[in-house]
C-alpha cells in the first residue's frame, strides 16, 4: 500500500465507524502504541471533517498486560493516556492484526480503565494467523501472509511516509520484530 492507499483506507474506515455507530458523538478512538496512536489521531481528524464532531483519542500501552511477561526482555513502557471511557463506544486502533494477543492485552488494559458500552477494533492491515478468537470490525486491507513474512507499516509521523510493505525475514528476526 502506498500513501494514497493508506489515506483511502483510513477515509473508508472513518465512514464505516460513523455509519455503524450512527454518528460519532459517543465514540472514543484509542490507539495502541506506537503506530496505532497516530492512526487513531488521523481517524479522529477524518471523522471530524465528515461529521463536524471532535472525537476524543487516547493512547494505550499494553506492556504491563502482555501474556509473555517473563519470557523476554521487559518492554519499554509509556504512560497510558485515555479519556473517560465509561458508557462510550471505544474503537481500538492498531496498525497490524496478527495473532490477536496484543488486542487481548489491550482489552484487559482498557477494561481496567472503566466500563465502555462497546469495544470495536480497527486495523490498517489484517495479516491473518490468529491465535485467539478475535476479529477486526474495520480493516484497511487484508494481506494474506506467511509466518516468515513481516508486515512493515510506516506512518509519516514516524517514518516520513505512509506505506505498508511486505518483507521476508528469518525466524529469529521475525520474533524480534513481532515484539
Amino acid at each position: 500500500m502506498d500513501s494514497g492507499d493508506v489515506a483511502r483506507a483510513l477515509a473508508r474506515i472513518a465512514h464505516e465507524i460513523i455509519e455503524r455507530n450512527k454518528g460519532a458523538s459517543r465514540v472514543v478512538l484509542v490507539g495502541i502504541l506506537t503506530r496505532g496512536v497516530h492512526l487513531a489521531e488521523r481517524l479522529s481528524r477524518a471523522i471530524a471533517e465528515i461529521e463536524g464532531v471532535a472525537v476524543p483519542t487516547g493512547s494505550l500501552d499494553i506492556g504491563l498486560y502482555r501474556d509473555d511477561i517473563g519470557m523476554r526482555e521487559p518492554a519499554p513502557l509509556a504512560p497510558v493516556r485515555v479519556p473517560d471511557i465509561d458508557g462510550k463506544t471505544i474503537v481500538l486502533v492498531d496498525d497490524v492484526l496478527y495473532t490477536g494477543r496484543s488486542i487481548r492485552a489491550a482489552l484487559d488494559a482498557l477494561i481496567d480503565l472503566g466500563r465502555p458500552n462497546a469495544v470495536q477494533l480497527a486495523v490498517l492491515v489484517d495479516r491473518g494467523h490468529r491465535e485467539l478468537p478475535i476479529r477486526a470490525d474495520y480493516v484497511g486491507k487484508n494481506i494474506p501472509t506467511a509466518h516468515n513474512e513481516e508486515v512493515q507499516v510506516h506512518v509519516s509521523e514516524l517514518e516520513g511516509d505512509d506505506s505498508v510493505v511486505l518483507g521476508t525475514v528469518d525466524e529469529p528476526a521475525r520474533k524480534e520484530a513481532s515484539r
Partner: protein
Amino acid sequence: MIKHLLSIRDLDADGITRVLDTAGAFRENMGRKYPTLRLKTVVNFFYESSTRTRTSFELAAKRLSADVLNFASGGSSVEKGESLKDTAQTIEAMGVDCIIIRHSSAGAANRLADWVSASVINAGDGMHEHPTQALLDLFTIRQHVPTFEGLRVAIVGDVLHSRVARSDVIGLQTMGADVTLVAPPTLLPPGVDSWGVRVATHLDPVLRELDVCYLLRMQLERQKSGYVPTLREYARLWGLDRRRAAMLPERALIMHPGPMNRGVEIAADVAEFERAVITDQVTNGIAVRQALLYLILGGPEVKEGGPDAG
C-alpha cells in the same frame, strides 16, 4: 536487565535512564493496579526499622499484583537467634522471586545474593548503600531539569553515616552531575578525597551556585558520640533556614530523604517551600520501585555471569 540491585553501581547511565523512563510511565498513572507480576512473590526482609521504604516497596509490589510477605526481625525467628543465612534459606525454600533486604550491616545484601537464587534488592545496608533512594532522587531531579550533565548538587550533613549520600553521589556522578559534599569535618567519611567530589565545610559560600540542595537527616541516635557539639549549633551552621534558602538560585530544588528533623537540618517553614520536593520524593519512590520490580522480575530469569548480567 540486572538480576540484583545491590549497589547503584550495578546500573550504568543507560541502565539508570531505563529505570527512570519506565518509572515515568508508572508515575503518570499512579494508583493503578496491573496484573503484570501476579505469579511472583516478593519478600520484604527488614532487619532495621523503616516506614517509608518498606511501605513503598510493598505498595509498588502490590500495584503490580505480586504477592508480598513482610518479614521484620522483631517478633520472628531472628529473635530466637537464627542467622541471616538460615533465615534467608528458609524464606527461599518457600519459593520467593525477590528479596528486598534492609540490614544494619554493610554488605548484607551482597551476602544474601550469594546464598539465594532469588533476586535481591538492597533497601539499605548499614552505612553502605541505598540504591533505590538514589534512583528516586534522580527521578525527582529529572522531573525539573532537562539534563544531569553539569548539574550542581550539594549533599549537606552527616555524610559519614549516610548510605543515602553514598548511593546519591555515585548515581549523580554516573549521570554527569557535579557533586559537592558539605559537612562538619567530623561527619565527613575517611577517604572522601577519592570520591571525586568537591568538599566544603561551610554551607553559605556553596548555596548561590546550586541547582539542588540535598539535606541529609541528622541521625539523632548517633549524636550522643559527640560528632557535633549540639544539634542547635548544627542547625545554626549547617541547617537550611529561611535566610540560607533565600541564597539559593530561584529554581534550585530542596530535597531530603526523610524522615526530617524539622528545625535541625531543615527549618520547618523551608520544608514547605514550593521548591522543596520532599513529598514528591516519596510518591516518586513508589513509581521507581514499580519500575525496578517490573524490570527485574518481568524478564526472563537472568543467569548470573551470563551475557545479560551486570
